C-alpha cells in the first residue's frame, strides 16, 4: 500500500475517480459506455500524439514540432489521395512516410549539431508549417473520398442503447489502443526501449555503455514523427476536413497532458500508463464540464488549476524526500 503511494499514477487515478464521481452525481449520463466510447474516439488524436511525446520525454528530449508534422502529414495525404486516388493503406503509408521523414530531420539536427531539442523543434515547427501554408495557400480541403468517409465509421463491435442508438468501439480508438500496446512492448521488452530510458537517465553513461545514441535518437524522433502523421490522419478522419491551421498551436496542450501523467521533463522517467491517465484526466474534465453544464469558458481555468496543483504537489513531495538525516546517538 505504501509502495502504491510512491507512484504519481496513483494520485492521478484518485483525482480521476473523484472527478468522475462528482460528474456522475450531477449528470448520470457521464457514467455510460456510450459516453466512454465517444470520449475515447474523440481523444484518440491527442492520445496518439501523447504516446510519441512520452517517448521523447523519457529519452530526455522534447519535441514541439509534432503539430506541424501532423498537419503536413494529413495535408499531403489528402492532396495525394484526392489527386491520384488510393485506399486507406496508401493514406497510412503517406502519413507514415511524411511523419518519419520530418522526424528524422529533427534527429539529425539534434544529434550532429548538438542543438537543444526544444530549440531545434521550435525552429522546425516554423519551417515545416511555414512551407506547408505557403505551398497550400492555407486552403481547407473538404472533398475527401467516400472510402475515407466510410472508414471513419467502422466499428470493431457495435452495441445499442435503450433508445436504439448504435455505438461501439471505433476503429480509430482501436488504432490508438494498438499503438499504446506496441509502444509499451517497445519500451518494456526491447533493447531499444531500455536504451531510451538509459539515455534519458544519463546520456554520458549510455554512450560509455555502448548504446548507439544516434540510432536511439533517430528512432525516438522518427517515432514521434510517425505518431504525428497518424494523429494527423486520425484528425482528418474525425472531422472529415483538412484545415492547415487547426492543429498547430496545440503542442503545449498535449505536452501538458503527458506531464500530468508524471513524465519528467528531465528525462528518464515516465510511463505510458501515466500518459493514458493524463489524457483521460483532460478528457473527462472537458467532457464533465459540458455534462455539468458549466460554460466551456471555464475549461482552461480548470485545466490550469489541475496542472499547477499537480506539479506543485509532486514538487513538494520530492522536496520532502530530499531532507536528509543521519543517525544521532541518543535520539
Amino acid at each position, binding site marked *: 500500500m505504501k509502495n502504491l503511494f510512491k507512484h504519481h499514477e496513483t494520485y492521478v487515478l484518485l483525482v480521476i475517480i473523484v472527478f468522475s464521481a462528482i460528474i456522475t452525481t450531477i449528470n448520470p449520463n457521464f457514467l455510460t459506455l456510450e459516453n466512454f466510447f465517444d470520449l475515447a474516439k474523440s481523444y484518440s488524436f491527442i492520445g496518439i500524439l501523447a504516446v510519441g511525446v512520452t517517448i521523447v520525454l523519457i529519452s530526455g528530449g522534447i519535441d514541439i514540432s509534432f503539430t506541424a508534422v501532423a498537419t503536413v502529414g494529413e495535408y499531403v495525404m489528402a492532396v495525394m489521395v484526392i489527386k491520384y486516388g488510393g485506399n486507406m493503406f496508401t493514406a497510412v503509408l503517406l502519413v507514415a512516410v511524411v511523419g518519419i521523414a520530418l522526424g528524422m530531420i529533427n534527429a539529425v539536427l539534434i544529434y550532429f549539431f548538438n542543438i537543444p531539442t526544444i530549440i531545434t523543434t521550435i525552429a522546425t515547427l516554423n519551417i515545416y508549417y511555414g512551407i506547408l501554408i505557403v505551398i497550400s495557400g492555407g486552403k481547407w480541403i473538404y472533398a475527401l473520398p467516400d472510402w475515407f468517409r466510410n472508414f471513419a465509421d467502422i466499428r470493431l463491435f457495435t452495441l445499442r442503447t435503450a433508445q436504439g442508438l448504435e455505438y461501439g468501439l471505433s476503429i480509430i480508438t482501436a488504432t490508438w489502443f494498438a499503438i499504446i500496446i506496441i509502444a509499451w512492448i517497445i519500451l518494456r*521488452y526491447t533493447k531499444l526501449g531500455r536504451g531510451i530510458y538509459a539515455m534519458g537517465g544519463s546520456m*554520458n553513461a549510455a554512450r*560509455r555503455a555502448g548504446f548507439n545514441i544516434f540510432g536511439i535518437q533517430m528512432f525516438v524522433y522518427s517515432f514521434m514523427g510517425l505518431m504525428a502523421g497518424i494523429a494527423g490522419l486520425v484528425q482528418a478522419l474525425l472531422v472529415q476536413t483538412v484545415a492547415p491551421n487547426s492543429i498547430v498551436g496545440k503542442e503545449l496542450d498535449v505536452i501538458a497532458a503527458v506531464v500530468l501523467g508524471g513524465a519528467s521533463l528531465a528525462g528518464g522517467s515516465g510511463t505510458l500508463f501515466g500518459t493514458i491517465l493524463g489524457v483521460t484526466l483532460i478528457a473527462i474534465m472537458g467532457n464533465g464540464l459540458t455534462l455539468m453544464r458549466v460554460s466551456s469558458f471555464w475549461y482552461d481555468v480548470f485545466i490550469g488549476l489541475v496542472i499547477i496543483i499537480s506539479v506543485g504537489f509532486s514538487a513538494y513531495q520530492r522536496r520532502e524526500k530530499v531532507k536528509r538525516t*543521519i*543517525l544521532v546517538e541518543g*535520539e
Partner: protein
Amino acid sequence: MTDLFLSMKNISKRYTGVKALDRVDFEIARGEIHCLVGENGSGKSTLIKIISGVVKPDSGARIEVEGDVILHHHSIDSILKGIEVIYQDLSLFPNLTVAENISLSQTIASRSKIINWRRVREISEKAMARIGVHIPLDEQIDNLSIADQQLVAICRALTSEVKLLILDEPTSALTRKEVESLFTVIKDLQAKGIATLFISHKLDEVLQIAEKVTILRDGKKIETLPSRGLTDEKLTFLMTGEKMEYSRYTIDNRHEEPLLEARQLSIQGNFRDISFKLYPGDILGITGLLGSGRTELAEALFGMNPFESGDLFIEGRKISIKSVQEAIRLGIGYVPENRLVQGLVMNQSVAKNIIITTITRLLNKFKLIDPEKRQRSITRWIKNLSIRIPAFDAPVHTLSGGNQQRVVLAKWIATSPKVLILDGPTVGIDVAAKSSIHDIIRDLAGRGMGIIIISDEVPEVFHNCNRIMVMHKGRIIAEFDSTVTTEEEIQNCINMAS
C-alpha cells in the same frame, strides 16, 4: 613475476605540444592489486585510457595482454580481453533498477533485440553472488548509497569474463567502513585470480591494500615498488620530487575573548549538544567519518540549516543565524566540501566568482555596480592569493584544482570574515598545492581570524590545527590539544568509535 597479464612498453602520448606520457613501461600480473599514484596531470588517466583502449598511444608502443600483442586497440578489444574500467562517476543509470544496471553490458552485447527479464535477474544475482553482496534487485539506483552504487558498478563489471578491474578513485566518496568492505571485495576478487588496478589520492589506503605501487610524475614513470616498507612521506616525495616539511601549528590565545562560542547546539537527526569555543587565531580541526554530522554542523553555523536548540555567541553577543546572508553579515564564511558543485560557478569567470560574495559592497551612490571598484577588488584578490589565470574572464573550470580553491578562498577572505569554516579544504588537490593552501590558512589565523577545518584526513587536521575535535554520530566524542597528542591517538579514537 612470470605470470604477467598485461605488459606495456614504451608508451608515449603527445597532445598538441604537451607530453602526457613519456616512454612509460608498465605491467600487471594476474591477480595482482596494483595502485597508480601521481599528482593531477601526471598522466594517470591517460595511462588508464590507453589500457582501456579509449586513447591510442603514439607509435613505438607495444602492448601485450596475456602474451598477445594488441595492434588495433579499441575499447571493445580491451573488454573482450577482460579489462573493465569503473570510472569515478560510476556511469550508472540513476533511473533504472539495480538488476538492469548490472546486466546492462550483457544486454547490449547480446544479439537479441528483446529483453528477457528473467535472464536480467539471473545475471544480476550471479554477479552479486560472486562477491557475496545483496542489494535489492528492483531498487532504483538513485535510492542507493554511493557505496552500494559502487558495488553495483563492480557487479556490472563482473558479468563479463573480467581479468583486470580498473577503479578510478573508488574511495573518494566512501566512509571508512565502506572502504574496508570495498577492500574485502577486492581481496576476494584477487582470490579468484582477478587483478585490480586502482587510482587513489589517499596514500594511507594505497599502502593498506596495494601490493605494488607505480608512481607517475610529469608523464614519466618514476618507479614501481612493492608497497611493503613504503611510507606516506616516501610516496609524497616520489610523487612531487620535493621533501614536504611538516611543521605544527600552535598558538597561545586562551586569555582572549572567544570569537565564536557554541553551547549545546542541536538539530534533530543531524547533531546534538555541540559545545565549543573558537578563539582568535585558532585553527580548530573537526574530524570524524563521513556522516558523523560534521558537514551538517558547518552548514548550520553558516545558516543553511538553522539549528533548533542551543545558543550561539559571536564575540560574546548572543545571536541566531537563520540564513546564509545573515551568517555572512555576522562574519562567517564557509568553503564547502564539493568545490565543483557548491564552491564555484564553474562556467562563469574567475572575476565573477571572486566578487560574488561582496557584490553589494562594490556599488556606487546610485546602487549600481561600480566598474572601478569591481576591477580593483578582483585584481587585489588575484594578486594577494597569487591565483594563476589565463584571463580575468576565463571560466573557472580552465584553472587547476589548486588555483580553483584559491578562488574560493579569495571570495571568502574578501568578505573579511571573523570565522572561516573550511570543509575538506584540500580534497582533490595536488600535494604541492595542498601545502600552499595550508600556508594561506595559517596566515589568516595568524591575523586573528578563527578557523575551523573539517577533514577526514587525520594528518591534515593534526598538522594544521591547534585543537582537534572528533565527531561521531552527531556528537563530539573527544577533543585533543595537538601539542600533547599524536596522529595515532586521534586515528584510534575514530576507529574505536566505528
